[in-house]
């Protein structure tokens, strides 16, 4: 498990939408390998029966009430966008493959 291949790095870069040069990929194979090897030491520990600490504090049920609060002015929202037409945020053409929306 501690070894990570170039193929793994390419796969992960794809998931993270990062474009890596060959040099970067090769360096990451090595660096991530070293770090993962270090992380391997966790396997010394028997954690069967240990509950994972999924949240930092033991707090539950924090909600907001269902009240409408003012939205951001559209001009103010769009003002910080790299590209917009005054109504919509603009992105390069989405080739809709039916995968939009919650998958």
């Amino acid at each position, binding site marked *: 498990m501690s070894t990570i291949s170039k193929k793994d790095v390419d796969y992960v870069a794809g*998931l993270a*939408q990062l474009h890596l040069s060959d040099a970067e990929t090769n360096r990451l194979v090595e660096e991530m390998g070293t770090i993962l090897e270090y992380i391997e030491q966790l396997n010394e520990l028997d954690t069967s029966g240990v509950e994972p600490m*999924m*949240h*930092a*504090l033991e*707090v*539950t*049920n*924090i*909600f*907001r*009430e*269902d*009240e*409408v*609060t*003012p*939205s*951001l002015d*559209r001009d103010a*929202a*769009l003002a910080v966008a790299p*590209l917009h*037409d005054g*109504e*919509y*945020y*603009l*992105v*390069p*053409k*989405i080739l*809709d*493959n*039916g*995968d*939009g*929306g*919650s*998958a």
Partner: protein
Amino acid sequence: MQYEAVIGMEVHVEINTKSKIFCGCSTNFHAPPNTNVCPICLGMPGVMPVLNREMVNKSIAAGLALNCTISRWSKMDRKNYFYPDQSKNYQISQYDLPLCLGGWLEIEVNGGPKRIGITRAHMEEDTARNVHTLGGGRSGVDFNRCGMPLLEIVTEPDIRSADEAYAYLTELKQILQYLDVSDCNMEEGSLRAEANISVRPVGTTSFGTKTEVKNVASFSGVQKAIEFEIKRQIKTLNEGGAVMQETRGWDADRGITFTQRQKESAHDYRYFPEPDLVPIVVDAAWEQGVAESLPELPQARRARFAKDYGLSAYDAQVITASQDYADYFETVARSGADPKQAANWMMGDLQALLVDAKQEIQDGLITPSHLSNMLKLIEDGTISGKIAKDVLADMFASGKQPEAIVREKGLLQISDSAALEGIVRRILADNPKQTAEFRAGKEQVLGFFVGQIMKATQGKANPKLVNDILRRELGA
């Protein structure tokens, strides 16, 4: 070979809270693009979600109505994927500990009940809307929908036909509308259904390769798409081909499904617990509080209407289609009017008027007391059923009570036998040929005379009395 279809449904329902799931932006569907947005639903740096309590309440209500177990302990998770309909490039959803688990919903199949298993129902945020019509090689993104509260309801692969799928969707929609958790408007996208469809030889238990049909705009579209897809898959197999796992769209104009996306490598969503939100603990008291606030659900109401008011199964189904409709009926029935008559008028003349005027029953001028009073006027012989049709139309237009209309227009039924006898004798005298025919045994001619008398009285003659006098005068 005989095949059977195996179908599971995934339905996304927008819950009708006032504000979004994690921020205070309005959920109003009709706002101009990017006006119901704030730093939170736009996923700006440094902001965090806070869960809307009402979303949890409404989701619990839906879960209970679908006979689910409400999780005592659940949590939100991050589902990671890049797409321009996302503001954070992860969607806050529920992965391994959804709020509602393991329920069922009953539908009618060939006159008998059938349970469709509900695997789970979980809370999540809706995504933004992408607009592809702007031109210039660009797409637009409208984040108004981003962060709308969604409940995703997933069934077991229990559905066996397009009709069952249709029945499931109809029943589900009715339940959710009764609960007032969603308006389930497919056109506005507040209910979106996807079907996972496969076929297998009858008698086998393993699953065939499934296709997923998405982006269908109506229940009947879903029904037709499933029907088509089942036939297509069987034909493919019969011709020695293989069904490909893929996502298919529905072309309503041509009535076919088509490949939208071939199966790629499986999605790797890298789910992990949302650290910005704390766990949701629904204790027995909370669950019970919601349970006690649940209204009577459609199935129970149908059964009760049939039993208490003597409605046929069909009538009960129609009358309970919407809660407002059923409430209207029940108010009329409880006021002492004849329930069957009430149902007939509601489904017949009143419905026709409403459809013409594009009105809902609760918005029209004919209130339950109008209808109830009119039915009583018919029952006590003040007006005839025929006159009542005119009274109804008048009430619909003016909102006046039926008594007032009858009085103003002089529509009181003629129940004075002396007056009617004179008219009957005159009609008989004017039509010797028909009189002779009747006496010769041609019973149908009676209808002709009734018509003539009604015409002469502008429909005000008491039909029962007319009948009696006619028979007497004709010596029948």
